């Protein structure tokens, strides 16, 4: 009885809060203010938010989110009720509605972003049962198509080393490329090898075929460059054993090589990369709403759940998210543990990056069309919103292009696509943008610095606008494209081939800026409108410049980067003496060590490297450089065991990636906009002085 009563009280309290909040919100959103009062309102509420932002409590975050949403909704209400264009001139009206649609999209994504990021779930690993007999059997699938063995081998070797009863762990190389050397390698290292001639449905088809031939209770799927730690299964499996309705546990994709943004803008490890926001915040937020989805790799999946949905989905090119969606429609739950358990290679070039994002965008658009999360049964409203957020995110290209071109419609053609006093529009829109920026910085700042979303979207927008649009109208079209990994950039160059849309957009915005400044300088009619649009063009130029600076591909000598690994080691000299050393970084091709008491070594000297805590396997090495205590070694012709030992030292430790993000500075929006400004100047300068640039053949 008391339980029912307290439930009733809770429900009444919640109803009261919703009613009160709703009425207050209605008043706040729909009450227009004159210019000065609106400006004062915006300024005062921003100061309030600044004060709130000094407190770290989660409740304060929720207040700031609510405040930001109220102010943004107030702006959108103002836009809809006051600034819609006249509907007599067709072009004005159409362009005005296009701009409005773009803003509505951005507003919707803001809301969905807050929804996903409001309460990221802190899910910790659960211990495995003491009784090993209760540990289930697991199949590890490593699908590959055309990647070189040098990329795939570490993954296989590390998978083989996963801490799991050997009789219940089977590693499979799923080769869609039918390459004999892969078969030989599998045999040499003692893992299973499946090849597939038909290669229909790409990666999904590859996995499904393997599912038909294997019987493990769980499946761990690893992209061929995703080298796992030894702890991956023990980290993930506890939750699956505890909850029989849990279909999959996803872990983050962690990249130990710089992506093109990080490499070309020199931000590797000093600021979050593009994927961190998703893997470190959004997936945790999705987890709260039981809407975590499979990301194609680094997930342990219950076979019965896979069987229940007919295996991995093959209708789209983002089979992973689609499969998770299907499982959840069947009533299965999904979960996410934010403990990085693999190390992978990021895309090497901007063009490869663009190709990968085109596939994701097309795939998400396909799912949105053929298995729309808002339609069909089996999902809660929250799940629908989370899935929709992840899919709609990839539709950012068109709105972004609209924002990049909108001010030109007035500056070039005098089209009034937005009615009303420009200063009033500014007084409403600035608080909306500034509160959103501050709140996002608070919620996401650890995972993505302020204004970088604009840079990423501006970089990708011209390339994914077409795939998403085509997929919306023809969802069955398009093929799976494999992301190239393990390549190199031979020399630094400006990739004009990939940058031309941005050059065009930058030229248009520069012209718009000059036109606006001229109108303002000459004091022509509507000079205030002109200067505001010119300011908009200036901001666009900034973002386009930053996008252009990413197109300056920086030289990358190593196909596989070295990892910072500090381990005690021993150097065995040809003389038979042994000297203690400490590794500083390691790669499969070489190492750098601190060797304090090592006699001078000539370049070309041969010695052996071994670790004192392991099997004392000696790894033959050649001295490349020896200066003071600093010793550089090269590994030639390693045996499988030696490579396995290196892989285990490099990748397999459970804590390999846990401290990767430590030591970063906090997000400071003003610093970030200044940095983007500098990148923008550099990019524009680069584009201006490189009329014809060298571009390597693919």
């Amino acid at each position, binding site marked *: 009885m008391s339980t029912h009563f307290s439930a009733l009280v809770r429900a009444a309290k919640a109803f009261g809060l919703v009613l009160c909040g709703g009425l207050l919100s209605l008043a706040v959103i729909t009450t227009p203010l004159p210019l000065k009062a609106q400006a*004062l309102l915006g300024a005062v509420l921003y100061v309030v938010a600044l004060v709130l932002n000094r407190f770290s409590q989660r*409740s304060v975050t929720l207040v700031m989110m609510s405040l930001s949403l109220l102010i943004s909704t107030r702006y959108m209400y103002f836009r809809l009720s006051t600034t819609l264009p006249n509907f007599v001139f067709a072009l004005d009206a159409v362009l005005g509605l296009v701009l409005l649609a773009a803003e509505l999209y951005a507003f919707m994504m803001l809301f969905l972003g807050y929804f996903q990021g409001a309460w990221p779930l802190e899910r910790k690993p659960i211990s495995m049962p003491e009784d090993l007999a209760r540990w289930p059997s697991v199949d590890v699938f490593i699908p590959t198509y055309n990647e070189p063995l040098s990329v795939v081998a570490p993954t296989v070797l590390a998978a083989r080393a996963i801490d799991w009863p050997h009789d219940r762990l089977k590693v499979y190389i799923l080769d869609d490329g039918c390459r004999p050397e892969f078969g030989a390698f599998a045999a040499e290292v003692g893992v299973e090898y499946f090849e597939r001639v038909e290669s229909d449905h790409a990666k999904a088809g590859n996995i499904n075929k393997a599912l038909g031939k294997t019987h493990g209770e769980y499946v761990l799927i690893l992209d061929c460059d995703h080298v796992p730690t030894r702890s991956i299964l023990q980290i993930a499996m506890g939750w699956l054993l*505890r909850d029989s309705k849990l279909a999959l546990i996803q872990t983050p994709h962690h990249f130990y090589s710089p992506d093109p943004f990080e490499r070309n803008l020199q931000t590797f490890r000093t600021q979050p990369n593009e994927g961190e926001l998703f893997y470190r915040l959004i997936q945790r937020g999705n987890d709260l709403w039981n809407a975590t989805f499979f990301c194609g790799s680094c997930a342990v999946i219950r076979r019965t759940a896979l069987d229940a949905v007919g295996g991995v989905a093959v209708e789209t090119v983002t089979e992973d998210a689609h499969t998770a969606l299907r499982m959840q429609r069947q009533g299965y739950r999904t979960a996410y543990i934010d403990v990085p358990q693999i190390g992978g290679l990021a895309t090497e070039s901007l063009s490869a990056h663009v190709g990968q994002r085109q596939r994701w965008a097309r795939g998400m658009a396909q799912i949105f069309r053929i298995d729309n999360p808002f339609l069909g049964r089996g999902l809660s409203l929250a799940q629908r919103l989370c899935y929709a957020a992840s899919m709609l995110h990839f539709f950012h290209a068109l709105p972004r292009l609209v924002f990049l071109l909108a001010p030109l419609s007035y500056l070039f053609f005098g089209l009034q696509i937005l009615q*009303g006093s420009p200063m009033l529009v500014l007084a409403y829109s600035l608080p909306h943008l500034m509160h959103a920026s501050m709140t996002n910085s608070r919620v996401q700042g650890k995972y993505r610095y302020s204004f970088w979303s604009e840079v990423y979207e501006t970089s990708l927008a011209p390339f994914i606008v077409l795939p998403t649009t085509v997929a919306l109208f023809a969802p069955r079209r398009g093929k799976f494209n494999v992301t190239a990994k393990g390549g190199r950039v031979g020399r630094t160059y400006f990739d004009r081939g990939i940058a031309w849309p941005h050059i065009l957009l930058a030229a248009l915005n520069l012209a718009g800026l000059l036109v606006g400044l001229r109108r303002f300088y000459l004091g022509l009619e509507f000079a205030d409108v002109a200067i505001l649009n010119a300011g908009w063009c200036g901001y666009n130029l900034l973002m386009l410049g930053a996008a252009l600076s990413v197109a300056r591909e920086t030289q990358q000598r190593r196909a596989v980067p070295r990892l910072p690994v500090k381990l005690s080691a021993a150097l065995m000299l040809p003389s038979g003496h042994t000297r203690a050393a400490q590794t500083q970084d390691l790669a499969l091709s070489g190492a750098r060590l601190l060797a304090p008491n090592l006699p001078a070594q000539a370049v070309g000297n041969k010695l052996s490297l071994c670790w004192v805590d392991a099997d004392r396997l000696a790894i033959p090495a050649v001295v490349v450089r020896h200066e003071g205590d600093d010793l550089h070694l090269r590994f030639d012709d390693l045996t499988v065991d030696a490579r396995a030992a290196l892989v285990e030292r490099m990748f397999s430790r459970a804590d390999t990636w846990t401290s990767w993000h430590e030591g970063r500075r906090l997000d400071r929006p003003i610093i970030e906009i200044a940095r983007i400004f500098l990148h923008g100047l550099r990019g524009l300068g680069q584009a201006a002085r490189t009329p014809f640039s060298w571009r390597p053949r693919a």
Partner: protein
Amino acid sequence: MMKRMGLTLSFLLLASATVVAQEPAAASGSESAARPQSFRIDLADLGLTRELSQRSDRTQQQVSFRARADHVLSAAALELSFDAARAATVFERVDVLLNGEVVQSIPAASLRDKAGQRHIQFEPTLLASQNALELRMQPLKAGVSTQPASCNVSPGAWTALRSGTLLLQSLPLPLPNDLAQLPLPFFDDSFEHAQQVAFVLPRSPSEAQLKAAGSVAGWFALQGRRRLTFTSHIGELPHADAVVILDGPQALASLGLSVQDGLLGSAGLALIDNPRSAGRKLLLVYGADAALLQRAALGLLRDGYNLKGAAVSFQPNIALQPLAAFEVPRWASGASISLGALADGQPLKVSGGHAQTLKVPFRLSPDLFVWPRDYVTLELAYEQGISKVRGPARLHVALNDKPIGPLSSQRRGRSQLRLPRSALRGYNELLFQISYDTPASAVTCGAQDNDENAWVSFKPDSRLKLGDAHHYALLPDLQLFIYDGFPFTAQGDLRDTSVLLPAQPSARELSSMLSLFAHFAAVTGYAATRVEVKLGAVEPRTLQGRDVLLIAEAERHPLLERYRAELPLALADSELVAQRPARSHFLKRIVTGQFNDSELERARGTLEGSAVGAVFALPAPWDAQRSWVVVTGSDSASLPEATALQGFARGQRPRNDLLLLQAGQRYLFELGTQDGRGQVDDLLALRFWLSHAWVALAALTLLAAIVWAVFARGQLAALARRRLDEANS
């Protein structure tokens, strides 16, 4: 009106005095009647405005002038002031032509020696009854002399002419005593000059006399477009044309006047010679008692256009049709008003291939309330003739000098424009600005400048859409009173208005009252017929349901003493002192953003020093739904007239409740708070109040955010717990 003026001249020699002045001094003024009178007229008043000169690219500008209808022009001169430095860069010379004859040629180079000033005396032989004054600019020749001179001056070239003033001298002609000539001899509205009307009232005028005087003042305001000023004379006749208000034979006698028996009957009007000044006239408004005096005033309002002869009497009772609330003749009303109705018959077409502006003036109710919309829609249909010489016109629309937007340069176009509510006032001017790009090719100047093939026409069925507008405003708002007479004018006949005066009003107080009645009539197009005038002490409860206008020098009305604490301005030690009105609650001020006393300090600072005139408004203490406006001054001389209230004022805020006039300057203040008044429901009124209380809105926003955060925290924390416990299920 012009037709009446034309008729006037034909009556000039028909002087038949049926009214005889008793005063023997009449004959002694004959010399002064023939004395010439001088007038200064700014060229801007004749149409050569700065706005036009900034936009125009025409080589010539033309204005016309004449003497008053009852005068003959005897001499004329022109004073021009140039910016010599600019002149040297835009023209070679300016020719001044009078009636087609070049009077003087002014080379730009010659302007430096006299700081750009030129005085040009016109030969009297060149003067006609209607004169055309033309300024013709010869632009600088571009490049080598073999190139043809340009047909146009560069836009803005005319700004080199800083100002121009016509100096006219004219001789008055004798007028017959004929009521058909009204408003002559008081003023000629077509003659561009300040107009003043003198009123004569008996000593200790009665309320009925003042009410009748107010109606007559309103009638005069309706006869012209310009602002009238008034002088009042109590118990004596002036040496000028005057209106005399009389309620009975005693009043007539007290001024030394008599009329032929039966001429006026019990109520009537008569035009007689002023016995104190030869050549001057008196308009007698006569009633045998108070009620009959009102009949005479109403007769003037009803028959003013059809009066004939030296005198008329009104026998039957006159009952003018009462006006409903907001049924104001000069206020456009309705959900959708055609442009033709707004223009009131004015042509909506302009011709000629040169820059010009078509003005459509119109009045709306000043409390027009379209909120939460902040605009009304103007649906425009227009067409233009496109000449080969000039090409299509560039069209811009502005409202009260605020740019609204361009129109497409099509041969036929339709457009929907939004007129911001903030730009709409009681009196508005819709401006259609037409301009042409200068053609690159050389063309014939005449063809280009007066190209009849280039025209723009706006269709009369274009519409101003007010939609479901209400009548609602935050009051007090002095701007509404100063420019639109609001809230008094909401009733066109002032039926809800009480005008309070001291028991013995001074001439200055009467002048101020008359000017306000005239102002109200100019706003509404209807002279006050149902206003209530009260003299001396008044019991507040009798003012329930009425808007009150009090006109008194500072200490001369008991109501000001009685409600001293409620006023933003009070008398203390014979000085006007600004104060916070008692009903201006602290919290109410805070939520509307009035955090400090800077306005109060500013007002106190302004009040230090010389004599001050003041107008303030407040909710009536005896009826919060009604307004109380007080026109006062620290002394008699500083009590302002209506015309003095209008014009630029420092410290203007969205709403003000105190206006101070000091040494020719105006200062506005907001010392109290406002309340809504009008015809909207309570919820809309509450929301509207909130829209003027941004501090309250900021607090509500924060409160809403906290409420949602509390709700979200409870829900999300519970959900997180459930998610992490799910495994046990």
